[in-house]
């Protein structure tokens, strides 16, 4: 409650600042409609904040509804219009909203080239000052959501990609230790096949889950400096990128993937890659930190794999230049639309408060970025993952996000072609470089 009162105080302060700002400016920068109410009065005026999120099932949805209700109760006059959507739906609708130049007040950003584009188009609010205290608290994890030193979003969940596996199936096949090197991994694949279990599912139909393999091999083969350089200079000439493709080619040749993986969707329906893992049809799937939640939504009992859920990090390769502890990951952050009322910034800050992040962690909705909440992550698999995240010397943002959708899309398409046996390691580099050159 104390936290909420503090939020109210901050809100009062913010409105005062807004009032002053309104008195000084002509008020042109505010769109007519709901937004204008912010500048015209104090707490007695009604403000509606639209909030889009992707926790559209089960406890997560209930929790977010409660969070919105709590904020409304603590801030009389503020109404939060909560829109819970399935992730892909939300992304599509966000695109449409951006095209119309009308982002929701509080919405999800994923950082990287995407965020930079939105900032360049003036769609996202600079919250460096208005949320300075929260930004200080979140520390380094905000880095991925800054453009030219200014912060545009508050990360609420940062996760790393890794292999989710079914402990029961591993046991059934007689596998006791999770693999740490790719040699081990190939043994695991063979053992699983020997036991008549399909080893790995991959949603290559959606392309990005397949592309993550190449990203991760690049992360193992390339040094941190090479990767950071590639993000800024868009230069992929380092031979480590070709080596990553060769590693992937070798993996595909071992045929570890589920039947029909070329058209398998990532996480929609029981026959999707996540669905196959959740229903015990395959033993392993490489996926982000959101996987347990997705699997819960794909099983009838709402438990996913339940206590059979296990997680291990992407194994190391021989002679790679990358640190084996580096991780591929990314996160979701709450951003505030350029025309949103100031209350929206307050709400975004509230979403990062100790209290909200604690509930977020307790429900295993993601990996909290507020350190005070880390201890509440109850799921053992997620706790393993969180440990890997916190120990990683470097977390590489998903390439398609980091490079933006134009380059990322071309890259993912070519990687998907490799999964179909129609692209060589060099082809992936060439296609990526061509798309990057078109952007320069």
């Amino acid at each position: 409650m104390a936290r909420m009162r503090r939020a109210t105080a901050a809100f009062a302060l913010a409105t005062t600042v807004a009032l002053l700002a309104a008195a000084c400016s002509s008020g042109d920068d505010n769109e007519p409609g709901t937004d204008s109410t912010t500048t015209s009065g104090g707490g007695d005026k009604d403000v509606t904040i639209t909030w889009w999120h992707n926790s559209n099932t089960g406890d997560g949805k209930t929790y977010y509804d409660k969070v919105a209700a709590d904020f409304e109760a603590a801030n009389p006059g503020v109404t939060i219009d909560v829109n819970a959507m399935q992730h892909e739906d939300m992304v599509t609708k966000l695109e449409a909203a951006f095209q119309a130049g009308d982002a929701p007040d509080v919405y999800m950003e994923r950082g990287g080239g995407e965020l930079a584009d939105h900032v360049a188009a003036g769609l996202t609010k600079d919250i460096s000052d208005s949320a300075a205290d929260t930004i200080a608290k979140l520390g380094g994890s905000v880095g991925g959501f800054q453009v030219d030193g200014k912060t545009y979003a508050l990360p609420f969940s940062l996760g790393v990609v890794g292999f989710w596996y079914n402990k029961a199936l591993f046991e059934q096949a007689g596998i006791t230790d999770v693999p740490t090197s790719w040699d081990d991994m190939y043994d695991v694949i063979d053992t699983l096949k020997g036991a008549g279990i399909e080893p790995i599912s991959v949603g290559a139909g959606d392309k990005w889950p397949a592309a993550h393999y190449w990203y991760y091999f690049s992360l193992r083969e390339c040094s941190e400096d090479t990767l950071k350089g590639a993000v800024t200079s868009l230069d992929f000439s380092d031979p480590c990128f070709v080596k990553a493709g060769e590693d992937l080619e070798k993996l595909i040749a071992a045929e570890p993937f589920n039947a029909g993986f070329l058209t398998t969707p990532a996480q929609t329906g029981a026959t999707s890659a996540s669905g196959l893992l959740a229903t015990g049809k395959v033993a392993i799937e490489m996926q982000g930190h959101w996987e347990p939640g997705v699997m819960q939504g794909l099983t009838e009992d709402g438990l996913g794999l339940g206590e059979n859920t296990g997680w291990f990090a992407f194994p190391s390769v021989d002679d790679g230049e990358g640190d084996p502890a580096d991780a591929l990951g990314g996160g979701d952050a709450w951003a505030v639309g350029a025309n949103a009322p100031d209350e929206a910034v307050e709400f975004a800050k509230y979403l990062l408060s100790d209290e909200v992040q604690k509930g977020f962690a307790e429900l295993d909705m993601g990996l909290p970025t507020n350190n005070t909440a880390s201890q509440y992550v109850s799921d053992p698999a997620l706790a393993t993952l969180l440990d890997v995240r916190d120990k990683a010397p470097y977390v590489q943002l998903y390439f398609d996000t980091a490079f933006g959708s134009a380059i990322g899309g071309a890259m993912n398409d070519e990687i998907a072609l490799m999964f179909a046996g129609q692209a060589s390691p060099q082809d992936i580099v060439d296609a990526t470089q061509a798309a990057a050159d078109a952007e320069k």
Partner: protein
Amino acid sequence: MIDVADEANAQQGASASAATSTLTVPVAGRTMRSAAGGPGGRRAGGNNTRKGLEIAFFVAPALLLFVFFVVWPIVKAVQFSFYRWKGYGPLVDFVGLKNYVSVLNNDVFTGALQHNLIIVVASIAIQLPLGLLIALLLNRRMRGQGMLRTIIFVPYVLAEVIAGVVWFQLLQPKYGVIDAWLDAVGLHGPEQGFLGDPKYALATVIVVLTWKYLGLAILLFLAGLQGVPDELYEAAQIDGASWWQVQRKITIPLLGPTMRTWAFLSMIGSLQLFDMVWILTKGGPANSTTTMATFLVTEGTKRSNYGIASAASVILFVVALILALLYQRFIMRRDNTVTVIKKKKVAR
């Protein structure tokens, strides 16, 4: 040019209808229109203003909708296609024809164009004979005729998305019904599934499309068959023609206009094909089922290359327009005159 041709047509039509009063049902509408339309319009000279206002009044709403939802988007698409544009913000980065060059040099797009053309040809080549055959069968008096017609028409009525999802599930490798059936009879589907293997994916999509759209062909053909006058059949029977001869010499020629119209619709639909492919394969695996529409959606909504997507959409529009005009010019028109002559022969 066109007027002359029209008049010639009208004359032929008129002479045909003079020669055979009952035969020209499909052509009659056209004949009457060109006969009454020409001089009728000129005669109304006295009331010109009023007539003009009347026309404007009745045409305006439709015209407004047309301009707003058809012409305007086309103009915008053409405009976007000259810019490098991410989908938001102002249009500033003018690139001229660069987007067109990159689309036409893109293997995925040329592949998509090929797939579209394959689907156009395959749809007509498969559905025309099959649809005709089933329509002829269903046109005979038999038990359960009404029910059979309904069953055959169900796929077409079913929403595209639902049908797509159902087929996607049926075609799942290992867990799908079709694989299970194949296994039961000792056959084995491709390991990656029919949709997952680049070799079979396009053919599989064509099978699903045939299943989906055959109903429309049959429905249209059945409707066309109702327009064939019974007298002709009676006359043929009296002359001792076999069932097969009757179909070949009477039914099919008189079904000509219906078939040509259907083929035209099918062609345009195949060129613009998007939804079924998107649900079944999203254009994959390995771009083996991309169509021009999936290409432009991928470029636009997935990669935010709206300039390139617009260029692709303009190319799609031009391809469809050219094919449509050629079809109208050569197949619809020439065949019209040919049928008229044939009909005269039949009448004799």
